[in-house]
């Protein structure tokens, strides 16, 4: 047949099927798959890029290279070759002098390009409202952190000396990109112009300096540069990317991104299942047409081509509609949230649609092609003998195609091979388990049938007789329930975690360097303004020097040798109170019996990085003193809780005689800001760290990602409902035929209705049992492996879900088969 004629015939057949309503569900499932995957993936992409941008704003750059010496100029030249912007800054510790008063400060010298990302904020005086700044200190000028001014009792306009250079303080520096990661124990900042560095005379051979090279550019350039840069570096260099820059929000954002990834995965699987169910029905309904066409002389190839053409047209149309819909939805949602969320601009151009087409095509090939391919094998003799069926499709091909498609799409959307592999393995295990458990449920229930009423027995017998279809329906319902449950429970867990994590009164200020004798007075001062402080923690700076009596540098793995924890002093503390958000992973927490015992509690990630295990002996240098302590427990810390947290915690009585200061944190509403001034004037040694801006932003972001999570949730509920609908209608042809036959044999509509109701109640119940089993298994894996949340077993769900499943499927099934009850028995005579 000529191609043109073939296309014409294909389009005509398609139009007829469309008119007959055969294709609507297939079309809707495809549109949904494409819309869900495109909108969620675009949202993920824009959010991820937005978050990276925002992190970069906090860091002041996309990448920072730190080095104790100036780096080879080729490193910088190479950066321009990758189209990256570059700026250098120099950081050193120095005494800032005013008259007789001295203050150890961290001086940072920057040039005009600083910062490459984000903005500095300054104010005209301490603790007054600040604003974004687009410049840097002029030569001869300096911007000082509030702590310098308060400790030296200065105000803007006064002069200070750094080395041999006198500088006039023109602004108060309230925020500087790149500062957020290192809030504790850092001397207050003095920002100067790089031109002034030589004149200070501070930079001498042997001076402790940190050269910072800031880079910014597009992702391609950055990735390429990063790859090129790595082998050029030695142990003295360190590279900080945006992911390291934002520890505070990192975990939350990562979880949100993973939730979106999970959402895509579930959308793909659900839509795939819906398509598979619908196409199976489609192909069965087309057996007669195919046999007739073969009978009329169409070759197998031509017949296949005819169906493929129809699929192509359908796929293109559904992908176009779905792509557009998905794009519009994400654009709409993110436009509403863009003021509050770090949303990157949408990628313009044709990309969204291409992605939609790829999804639609892949779904069709994976889920629709195998059943349709089977149509070409219909024996033409079927026109005479309707019971002749084509050979069943090769199971490997059918499932292989479907699994391959899901694999491809999830990998394409999440770019996380570990996630994909574990999800696929989980899905295969789950499918097998579903099938086995479903079969067992049917068999067990069947053995109980002598105790049931007539309608129940009849319904159960129907399920058993059609057990293959019943099992696939139970699996489909179970899968849809499971997907909806997982996504709902994870949503609840995430949102409650986020709400609990940063409640409205989360401490937003830290006070450190509180002298022991002033600790009570500081608390009282704050309390007099109705500001409640958290526990006071003693703070001692010490260095980890040995692990099991070996110097740390040789005791740890090669990768860990550059670890920050080894290169700087750690904050040590002692307490018997375990912070609420800390958890003991190994060993036991300290009790009063441990007082004065040389024990230490170690933060889990640090322990993992350095290979520290329970009962290891750790050696510390604190000032001039040496201290040995045995690891009593490994403890996880929620670093994004904004509470004081420590890597190392000792029992009381071990460090008490060493010189220490105290720290605390407190929530201070904006209108009480002036109290800060009062505090530092009264206790100039105290360093205040203002986290209110960061925290407020974090809270806002949490609430907004919660919105997105809700959106994904709603979308997936829709996908789940479509699967349910497809699965409900899957058996409708058989039921219509059976209904007619049963009515001919004298069944009343009540009998039919009761049998259907019993059947669907049982189907829903079994599906609910499978769903809750699967859900618990999936959640356990998700929480422990992917989202790092605590898994809580919920026994109530084991009752609610099967009952809800029975009620829902019972009602929906009863409703969807109402036609069957009234099917005219004449159908049988007309068919003869």
């Amino acid at each position, binding site marked *: 047949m000529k191609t043109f004629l073939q296309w014409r015939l294909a389009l005509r057949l398609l139009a007829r099927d469309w008119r007959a309503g055969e294709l609507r569900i297939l079309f809707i499932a495809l549109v949904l798959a494409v819309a869900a995957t495109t909108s969620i993936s675009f949202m993920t992409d824009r959010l991820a890029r937005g978050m990276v941008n925002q992190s970069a704003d906090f860091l002041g750059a996309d990448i920072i290279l730190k080095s104790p010496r100036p780096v080879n100029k080729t490193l910088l030249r190479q950066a321009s070759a990758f189209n990256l912007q570059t700026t250098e800054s120099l950081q050193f510790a120095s005494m800032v002098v005013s008259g007789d008063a001295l203050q150890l400060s961290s001086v940072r010298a920057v040039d005009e390009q600083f910062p490459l990302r984000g903005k500095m904020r300054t104010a005209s005086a301490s603790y007054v409202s600040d604003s974004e700044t687009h410049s840097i200190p002029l030569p001869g000028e300096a911007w000082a952190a509030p702590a310098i001014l308060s400790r030296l009792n200065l105000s803007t306009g006064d002069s200070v000396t750094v080395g041999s250079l006198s500088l006039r303080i023109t602004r108060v520096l309230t925020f500087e990109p790149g500062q957020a990661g290192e809030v504790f124990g850092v001397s207050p900042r003095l920002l100067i112009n790089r031109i002034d560095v030589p004149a200070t005379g501070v930079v001498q051979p042997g001076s402790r300096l940190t050269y910072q090279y800031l880079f910014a550019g597009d992702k391609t350039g950055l990735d390429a540069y990063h790859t090129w840069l790595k082998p050029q570096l030695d142990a003295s260099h360190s590279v900080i990317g945006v992911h390291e820059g934002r520890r505070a929000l990192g975990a939350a954002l990562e979880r949100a991104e993973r939730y979106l990834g999970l959402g895509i995965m579930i959308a793909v699987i659900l839509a795939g299942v819906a398509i598979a169910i619908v196409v199976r029905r489609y192909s069965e309904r087309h057996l007669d047409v195919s046999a007739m066409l073969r009978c009329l002389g169409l070759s197998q190839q031509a017949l296949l081509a005819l169906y493929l053409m129809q699929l192509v047209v359908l796929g293109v149309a559904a992908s176009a509609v779905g792509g557009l819909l998905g794009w519009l939805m994400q654009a709409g949602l993110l436009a509403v949230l863009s003021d509050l969320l770090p949303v990157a601009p949408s990628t313009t151009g044709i990309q969204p649609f291409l992605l939609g087409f790829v999804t639609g095509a892949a779904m069709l090939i994976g889920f629709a092609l195998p059943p349709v391919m089977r149509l070409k094998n219909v024996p033409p003799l079927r026109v005479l003998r309707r019971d002749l069926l084509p050979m069943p499709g090769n199971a490997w091909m059918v499932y292989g195609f479907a699994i391959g498609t899901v694999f491809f799409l999830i990998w394409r959307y999440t770019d996380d091979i570990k996630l994909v592999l574990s999800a696929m393995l989980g899905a295969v295990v789950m499918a097998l388990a579903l099938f086995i458990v479903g079969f067992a449920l049917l068999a067990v229930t069947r053995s109980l049938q002598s105790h049931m009423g007539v309608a129940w027995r009849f319904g159960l017998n129907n399920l058993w007789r059609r057990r293959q279809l019943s099992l696939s329906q139970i699996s489909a319902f179970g899968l849809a329930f499971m997907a909806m449950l997982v996504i709902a429970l994870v949503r609840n867990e995430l949102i409650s975690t986020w709400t609990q994590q940063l409640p409205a009164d989360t401490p937003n200020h830290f006070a450190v360097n509180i002298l022991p004798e002033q600790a009570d007075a500081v608390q009282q001062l704050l309390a007099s303004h109705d500001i409640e402080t958290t526990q006071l923690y003693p703070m001692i700076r010490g260095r980890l020097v040995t692990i099991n009596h070996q110097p740390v540098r040789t005791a740890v793995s090669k990768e860990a040798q550059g670890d920050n924890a080894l290169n700087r002093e750690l904050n040590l503390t002692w307490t018997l109170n375990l912070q609420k958000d800390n958890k003991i992973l190994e060993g036991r927490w300290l009790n009063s019996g441990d007082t004065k015992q040389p024990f230490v509690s170690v933060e889990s990630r640090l322990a993992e990085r350095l290979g520290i295990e329970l009962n290891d002996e750790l050696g510390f240098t604190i000032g001039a003193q040496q201290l040995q302590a045995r690891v009593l427990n490994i403890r996880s810390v929620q670093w994004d809780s904004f509470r004081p947290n420590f890597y190392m915690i000792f029992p009381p009585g071990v460090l008490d005689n060493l010189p220490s200061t105290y720290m605390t944190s407190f929530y201070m509403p904006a209108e009480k800001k002036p109290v800060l001034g009062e505090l530092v004037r009264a206790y100039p040694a105290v360093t205040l760290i203002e986290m209110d801006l960061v925290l407020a932003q974090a809270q806002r972001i949490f609430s907004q990602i919660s919105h997105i999570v809700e959106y994904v949730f709603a979308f997936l509920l829709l996908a789940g409902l479509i699967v349910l609908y497809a699965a409900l209608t899957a058996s409708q042809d058989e039921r219509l035929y059976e209904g007619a036959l*049963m009515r001919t044999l004298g069944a009343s509509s009540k009998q039919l209705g009761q049998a259907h109701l019993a059947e669907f109640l049982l189907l829903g119940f079994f599906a609910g049992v499978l769903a809750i089993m699967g859900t618990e298994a999936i959640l356990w894996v998700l929480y422990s492996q992917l989202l790092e949340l605590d898994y809580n077993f919920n026994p109530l769900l084991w009752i609610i879900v099967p009952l809800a499943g029975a009620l829902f499927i019972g009602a929906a099934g009863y409703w969807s088969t109402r036609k069957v009850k009234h099917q005219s028995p004449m159908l049988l005579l007309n068919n003869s």
Partner: protein
Amino acid sequence: MSANQKIIRVAASGLCKRVETANGLLDILLDIELKIHAAESVAIVGVSGSGKSTLLGLLAGLDLPSSGEVHLDGNNLSMLDEDGRAEIRSRLVGFVFQSFQLLPGLTALENVMLPLELAGRNDARERATQLLARVGLDARLTHYPKQLSGGEQQRVALARAFAIQPAILFADEPTGNLDSTTGKLIIDLLFELNAEQGTTLVLVTHDESLANRCDRKIRLDAGRVVNGIDHS
């Protein structure tokens, strides 16, 4: 004529069936009058499109006439709703179809059990097994329809039709899908069962030899009865 034969099992009066088509109303059956007695066998014959199957459907209460009445064993079907008619069918009526109409997902035994289960009979399995043995399929109880030949499928259908010991059996071209040898065997079986159970038989057929075995032929032409030949 025995006493049994005086009972009227099936009666139709003024029966019309009219359907709407694209070209206006079409009369399929016009003013049919007939009476069929207990244990009588009647063949409805006529060319294709003469309205045979429609008449069978109306007589069996599978469909409702546009006008006129059908009485089955004294029950006026027109006065009953579909459930009422189903109830009559479950007690009185058996069916045999040209294309067998067995449920493909059910075994031979389960297919025969179905009407018995619908009637709430507790001995469904035993009765169905006996009947399948009667039609010579005792070795095929657990076979599915697609594992059976056409003749065997029709025998299962016969066993199903006689399962509830119907007063009236309606058959629509029962040999239409079978070769002549197999068809003859099925017909022999049908008449044997009919005689054993004293069933009233109403069948639609093209097959003149089959029609000739019946007590009476009702010939339809363009929706009207043109003659009723009484072989008895």
